[in-house]
């Protein structure tokens, strides 16, 4: 098995060949298939990839497709970019989207909160007018940004087919 190399907005991304969990995860993303590890012992998914189930400690799992839809759980809106790759791309949103799958499990306040940027349906970082429409509660669907061979990143765009909240929660000072 070989590792992954990619490029995203000019950033070099690498996954070492020993890191079999991340190699598999991003490989499925490259096929447009969002899969998470499902523990063979307790049937729970986890994100991001880990070597053992954080809830049972079991090393045994299957990669199982998960519906990549959910609602924004929280976010950050970057106006002063730190990394050179994001200079000139502000404002951009860092989203934590809580999947509908396994919401409130294993604990009442737990969930699968999958990171990604807000992007257009074709995968480009969202323009400012789209950024200002998304907040906590917004319904999202996943799209994939290809960054290399067998290597794509999960990203989030507004779910056009879902019923959106009338006014998703946004930072009050606007």
């Amino acid at each position: 098995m070989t590792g992954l190399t990619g490029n995203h907005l000019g950033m070099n991304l690498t996954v070492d060949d020993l890191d079999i969990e991340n190699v598999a995860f991003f490989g499925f993303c490259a096929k447009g298939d969002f899969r998470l590890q499902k523990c063979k012992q307790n049937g729970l998914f986890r994100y991001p990839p880990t070597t053992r189930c954080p809830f049972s400690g079991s090393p045994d799992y299957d990669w199982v497709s998960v519906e990549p839809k959910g609602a924004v759980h929280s976010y950050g809106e970057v106006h002063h970019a730190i990394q050179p790759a994001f200079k000139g791309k502000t404002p951009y949103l860092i989203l934590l989207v809580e999947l509908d799958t396994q919401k409130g499990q294993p604990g009442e306040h737990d969930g699968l909160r999958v990171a990604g940027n807000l992007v257009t349906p074709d995968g480009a970082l969202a323009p400012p007018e789209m950024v200002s429409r998304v907040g906590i509660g917004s319904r999202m669907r996943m799209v994939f940004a290809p960054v290399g061979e067998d290597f794509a990143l999960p990203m989030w765009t507004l779910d056009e087919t879902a019923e959106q909240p009338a006014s998703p929660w946004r930072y009050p000072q606007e």
Partner: protein
Amino acid sequence: MTTSEIDATSPKHLAGKYAIVGVGETTYTRGGGRTTRAMATTAISNAMADAGLAAEDVDGMLSYSGGDSTPSPFVAGDLGIRLNFYMDVFGGGSSTEALVGIAMGVIEAGMCKTVAIFRSMNGYSQVRIGGTGARSAVPVKGDEIHNRAYGWQSAGQMFAPTFMRHMYDYGTTPEQVAMVKVVHSEHASNNPKAYYKKRYTVDEVLSSRIICKPLHLLDCCVETDNATCIIVTRSERARDLRQRPALIRSVAGRCCKPRSDMHYQSGPISTVAGHYAKDILWPNAGLGPDDVDVTGAYDAFTFTTMLQLEDYGFCKKGEGGIYVSDGTTRLGGKRPNNTSGGHLCEGYTHGINMVIENVRQLRHDVDDSCPIGSDGKRQHTYDYREGGCRQVKDAEVSANLGWANPGTGSAMIMMRG
């Protein structure tokens, strides 16, 4: 003492047995023009002089850094100190209190007698703490892809979802949180050492430019170049030294939320590690929040101060916004926080300066502008107007709450010796 009291997980038998006996720092600067090695030796030397300790009295050293400092053996060598123990650990804001605990442990184990703990950093002119500069452009590898590839890298970016969710869950307002900066800036104006001594208003905080919502520029700490040091030894040894000791009642070190590798997966994300650390901190101290006279809640950002004060139980869950904006945390209030001005104003040190400040508070000898009397002691006026006093009257107990990230924190309770 009952058997349960000497359970290893509840070491009440150590409460008060160790003390901070010396504190020291360099000038808080930008472009100080000195190596971390040179600054570390100055801060430690100042702390030794403060305590009345000679080189042969110090035989242990601990430091922490992100690979941006100088290892203990070099610093000790420059000071003529022969070490029986040292360790240089990786880490930032959750290190100070954790390393005090480690120092107590190694002294208790008989490995050495007196430990100098230091942090030396050119956080402005070399490795920038805000994450800009060379560090911002490093290649993104493995597990980091799940955050850095999304432009989710600096401390402010990484913590923003916690801060946002607290506002969503509890109705915390930008105006309430801005009061943290306002109050700390008032304190800094009474601290001749502070890098920023200007007093700010809520409007000035909220009209400063947005860095990463919900953070404005003035919600973020200052970047400075400096070294800081505290010296830990047995309390009984402190009797022969220059200063009244600050007795350590309890410590919690790098206490974590579940899955601290990706803490956003578990628990309410508007709850931070202090929620867990408080159950170590208070029982071991034999004290509670009501007993505390002065706090040092880590202010990498305005929000971090609020979240920690709340989760350590200084107010009800969700009422942190009220607590930091109703005057409680101000000099002259019920329980002032970060009386030096902290990281938002005095200088950024990854936590040690807030412990130094509370040690001086417990000595009733903070270095403000009050006149020094004929007995060589500062004559505190308790007039907290700009440029005036910053001594908390009759301070007996302090709490320091250190922050690495929402998922990891450290804490320490000290008492006037």
